[in-house]
C-alpha cells in the first residue's frame, strides 16, 4: 500500500486542525501543495488518494488538490554552481565530478495554501 495514502491522511488531519480553528466555516475549494522531486512521494498517487479520502469529509468534499513540484537541485561548492542531478543515474557535479554535497531544492513536502470562495459560508 503506497505511503501516499498515509501522507494524505496526515494532510487531511492537518487541514482539519486548521479548519477547526477558523471562526467561519468555509468549505475549502483548493489545497495547494509543494512536493519536491527528491522525496519518496509520487504526485499522482497523492492526487488519487486525496480524491478518495476527501469524500469522507464535509469541508474538503469539493476541494481540488493542486500540486506544484519543486525541482531537484544540488549545489557544487567547488564550481560554485547549481545543477540538476539525473535521478537514477548520476548525482555528482556534471562539471567536476564532485559528489552531491548540498541539496538546494527538491526535499519539500508542504501545505502552502488553502483557498475558499468568500460567499460560500456555511454554519
Amino acid at each position, binding site marked *: 500500500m503506497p505511503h501516499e495514502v498515509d501522507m494524505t491522511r496526515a494532510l487531511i488531519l*492537518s487541514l482539519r486542525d486548521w479548519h477547526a480553528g477558523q471562526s467561519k466555516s468555509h468549505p475549502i475549494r483548493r489545497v495547494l501543495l509543494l512536493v519536491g522531486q*527528491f522525496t519518496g512521494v509520487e504526485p499522482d498517487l497523492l492526487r488519487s488518494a486525496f480524491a478518495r479520502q476527501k469524500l469522507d469529509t464535509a469541508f474538503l468534499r469539493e476541494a481540488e488538490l493542486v500540486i506544484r513540484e519543486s525541482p531537484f537541485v544540488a549545489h557544487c561548492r567547488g564550481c560554485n554552481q547549481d545543477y540538476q542531478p539525473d535521478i537514477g543515474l548520476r*548525482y555528482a557535479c556534471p562539471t567536476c565530478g564532485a559528489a552531491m554535497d548540498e541539496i538546494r531544492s527538491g526535499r519539500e513536502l508542504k501545505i502552502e495554501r488553502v483557498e475558499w470562495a468568500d460567499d460560500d459560508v456555511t454554519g
Partner: protein
Amino acid sequence: MCGPGSDHSHGPTPAGADLNVDLLEENNDTAQRNRLRLDLAGVRCINLMSGPGAGKTSLLERTLAAIQGRMQTAVVEGDMTTELDAERLRAYGVPVVAITTGRACHLDADLMANGLTQLEQAGSLERFDLLFVENVGNLVCPAEFALGEHTRVALVAVTEGEDKPLKYPLMFRCADCVVVTKLDLLPYLRFDLPHLIAHIHQVNPHIPVFALSAETGEGMEPWLEWLQTEVAGIGTQPVVATL
C-alpha cells in the same frame, strides 16, 4: 517562500490563507517527543532500513550475540504481517516488541511511541543502552518517516547489485551509515564492491560504509566498534531543540 500567484482570472478572487506547514508535521512532532523520551532515559536508538531481505534481522542476530552482556539492548521490530523476525531475535534474550504494520509499508512515529510504551511496561527505558529498530523492508518509504531515532543505518546486500544507491538515493542520502551485507556471497557474483561504495558516496559523500557477512562474521569487528562509539556518544548529542 514564494506563495502561489493569484493568476486565476475566472470567478471571484478566492479568499485564502498561507499555511506553509510541513505535510509530515504531526509525524515529526511525535518523533521529537520519542526522541526526548529516549534522551531522558539515555538510550541510543538506531533505525535499520533496507529493501526486503537485505539482511537486517540476520545482522541483528549476529550483533546481539556479540554484544550480549556488554550493552543492554532492546529491539522494536517492524513487520507487515508476522512476528517471525521478532521470534528469531527473542532467542538472544533481549526484549523485542513486535509491531505489525498491516498494510503500511513503513514504521511511523506513532507506532514507535507505542513500541516505547510497550517496552516501558516492564520498567523504565533507562535500563537500556541501545534500542534497535528494524524497519519494514522497503527502500523508499521509511526514509520519509522520522521515528525519533538518533542514527539511521541503510543496509544493502551484495546480491542487489552496484546500482541500488543510484536507483533509490533517498534512503542512502538520509542514512548516517551504510552496511553492505552478505559479503560471503562475493565469489558467486559479478559484483564490484568499490563500485557500489563509489555510488553510495556520490549520493552521500562522507558516510561511513561497512561491508560484512552475518553468515561468516567477516567484517563484523569494525561495525561493532562503530556501534560502541555510537552508544558512547549519547552524552554529546544535541538536546532536542524544538519542544
